[in-house]
């Protein structure tokens, strides 16, 4: 029983951390985007205010069972991946489920949410949602290729599929994998553009033409859960990148600095870019990013 409660405590603390970091990044992104576009932008805690507002809203309608289950599916993805991904190096954080799943498990659980959300959006019957979903899933097939190539390259090179092992290797050798396997890092970062869905890959939830796509039929509590899941999941993904490629982090401050620096790559790339159509986006991911992924595998096999 004690084990269960320590697990629960770890889960709750990690969740809260992920939530606050994720939500703050969301707010900061809005400021940065605004400054680039020569606006002032909202305060950094705007997303937090939004989420409190959404939470306190009363819901008037519902669309049926799958509509309820959709946001819960996304939450599963967000929470389970944040529990499986180690937060800090050398067990300085709660162990959570770090030793229970490996990279391939993570790859699959990360796709669970989008599919669940797509199903939830499906039941609302909004055609915009369905269009957004087809674009989103297609784009996911696009960026998963370089992403998997990068991960497979790491697995080959270091003969492990465990995230903890990869972190330990970096601590022991003192070199970031980003430097020892640069092509894998490049492919992974380029795949990240698709993962975070900033421009030019934001056609999935295009606000003006699709009424935000898959989430268009969700408000109040639904959107609250979705936004929370989005923040937690963003933190999870960034931490995963830091764990895999940037030597992990010894304490929370370093983690925040590293993840924020990483997060700025898709954000800043996004603010200066227009939008790709879906098939252009897919082909983009199967172009240079996949080429780098291939180089990464070659490097892992031959060097």
């Amino acid at each position, binding site marked *: 029983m004690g084990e269960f409660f320590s697990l629960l405590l770890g889960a709750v603390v990690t969740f809260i951390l992920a939530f606050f970091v994720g939500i703050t990044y969301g707010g900061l992104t809005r400021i940065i985007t605004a400054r680039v576009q020569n606006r002032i932008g909202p305060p950094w805690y705007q997303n937090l205010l939004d989420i409190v507002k959404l939470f306190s809203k*009363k*819901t008037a*309608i*519902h669309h049926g069972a*799958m509509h*309820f*289950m959709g*946001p*819960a*599916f996304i939450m*599963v993805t967000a*929470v389970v991946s944040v529990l499986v991904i180690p937060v800090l190096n050398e067990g300085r954080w709660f162990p959570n*489920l770090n*030793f*229970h*799943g490996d990279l*391939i*498990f993570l*790859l*699959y*659980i990360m*796709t*669970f949410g989008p*599919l669940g959300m797509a*199903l939830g959006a*499906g*039941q*609302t*019957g*909004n*055609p*915009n949602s369905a*269009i957004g*979903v*087809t674009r989103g*899933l*297609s784009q996911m*097939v*696009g960026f*998963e*290729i370089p992403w*998997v*190539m990068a991960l*497979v390259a790491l697995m*080959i090179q270091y*003969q*492990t599929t*465990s995230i903890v*092992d990869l972190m330990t290797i970096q601590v022991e050798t003192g070199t970031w994998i980003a430097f020892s396997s640069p092509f894998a890092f490049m492919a992974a970062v380029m795949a990240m553009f698709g993962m975070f869905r900033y421009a030019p890959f934001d056609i999935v939830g295009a606000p003006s033409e699709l*009424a935000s796509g898959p989430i*268009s*039929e969700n408000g109040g*509590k639904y959107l609250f*859960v979705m936004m929370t899941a989005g923040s937690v999941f963003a933190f999870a993904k960034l931490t995963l990148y830091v764990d895999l490629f940037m030597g992990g982090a010894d304490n929370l401050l370093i983690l925040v600095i590293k993840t924020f620096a990483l997060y700025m790559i898709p954000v800043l790339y996004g603010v200066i870019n227009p939008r790709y*159509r*879906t*098939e252009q986006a*897919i*082909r983009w991911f199967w172009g240079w990013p996949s080429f780098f992924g291939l180089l990464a*595998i070659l490097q892992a096999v031959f060097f």
Partner: protein
Amino acid sequence: MNTIYLLFTVLFGGAILTFLLGKLSRILYYIVFLLTMAAAVFVFYAQIRIGDTVNINVDDMQLQWGLTAFGWLFSLMVLGLGLLAAIYSIAYMKGKDRLGYFYLHFLISIGAMLGILLSRDLVSFFIFWEIMTWASYFIVVYSGKDVQKTGIRYILFSAIGAYAMLMAIVIIYGQTNSISIDDLAVNYSTFSTSLQIWIPLLLITAFAVKSALMPLHVWAPGAYANSPMAYTAVFSGALSKMGIYGMVIVFVTLIANLPQGVIIRDIIAWLGAITAVMGTFWAIAQDDAKKLLAYSSIGQLGYIIVGVAIGTSFAMMAALFMAIMHALFKGALFMAVGAVERQAGTTDLTEVTGLIRKMPWTFIASLISIIALAGIPPVGGFVGKWMLYESLISSDHYLLVILIFFASTAGFLYCYKFLFGFFLGQEEKEWEHVKEAPVMMVVPMMLMAVMALILGVFPGILLKPVDVAMQSMGYAETYGHLWSMSVLFNEWGNQVMLEPLFYAIIIVFMVFLVFLVLKGMKGTRYVTTKDISTSGEIPLEHENLTFKGNFFQPFLRAVDPVMKRQIMTYYRQIGDGLEAFFDFIRRVYSGNGQTYAIYVMIFLVILLLLKDSLFG
């Protein structure tokens, strides 16, 4: 009487009995049919033990039937799926004509599949193989449109496979004077090198046809879609696995002893991976749910073939696990399509829409099966995929991993299309009359879906018989270093503990679901799918907001260059060429006496010209 005879007596006798007694009263069809299936399951699992054998001497040939642990593993698919499909078919076939015809061939094909699993010699293997092919052919042409074309394609490719197999058997008999499979394994290393290569290739051709390996797959979409869904579940779930069964035997007993075997392994594995990718692409492009699942079956069998062809103990375990998982979830999905077909009257994904509230149980069964098909944890499909990836990576097949992963991710698209097409989206007046399928159809589906879920958390239940079967094929024991009841290990010792992950997933899911339902149900009202945000406009009752056509157009545009090339064009060209050739030959017989007189003249002239060299 030996119990193996008893089994065949029950199945084939029951088949004929069903056919005959059913003429008296319709209800007898159902009763005798179900009793036969149940009796066969009882006889097989209660009376036949692994290791039982029986010898039959025909002339100077010795036929041998017996049950191995490996055959027993595959019998789970044949009889398990067969029994559930039989129960399902009672409700599904209600009101259709020629029931006796259907049940007769259903039972014969089940019997023939068991015959294949029990055959310990090549001749009875071939005979049962042909019985299976013909029985399934008769069901393919049972009903539906384009029956003739589909049937001819199926039987033509099956014939190619059968001839290949027959040729291999004749060569083997000529070499060793024995038809026993065990003797073949022993004698194989004494063959000449070219025979060592040709025999497995011929056999693999035969098995590849049944398991729809590209480029021999063209019969499959039509045949799967055309059979009644009650049979397609067995067709795709169990019958196609007979190809896998044969392939495993070829790879383990023959190619493993071949020095050049690595090349054959790689070729077949690559064909399997290409099949997986292209099967997935074509599944995405389909608008008919039956065709979609048919192509998806082709793709899924591609994964299994990759595992079999790589053939390390990990890969083989993955393949066998996936084979059984595929039988479970694809069986359930074909049954769900059958349920929709029966209740709504069509399986066109662009027509049927919004059935979730009308057929909730079918939806739940489909949802779990689709999650299994997509390979998402915590349902069983994940376990098989995980093992396959790990085995490919640790056996240095890196590009195959990428291809397989690509196929698997692209698979999400058709998974979503299937669920969205039938169950989600706009609810329309046209489908208001649709009711949930009868209990006898829902229960088998749900059973299989729940089974898939359980195997996702405790794969050890299934990995244990898989392990035993593999040990009987000569592999080392894998328990403890590759798996235990709910933990999977890869060859580097990394692990996935499924049980705690499953509980975590369920807890998180339930917490937020309860939160949403508590907050969302109280004081809220259900609104129709017309009552949605459409940029301030209020859609009227008659306005059609359904988005179904060209569903994954952006994706299909992106992969257009690959899909332009279809193997069917080449087959058609070969067919046209042959037709032209035969047409030319036909012209020789013009029916005109004068032409024939010229032939005689020409022949005599040639004889005269060559008389010196011919008659000296």
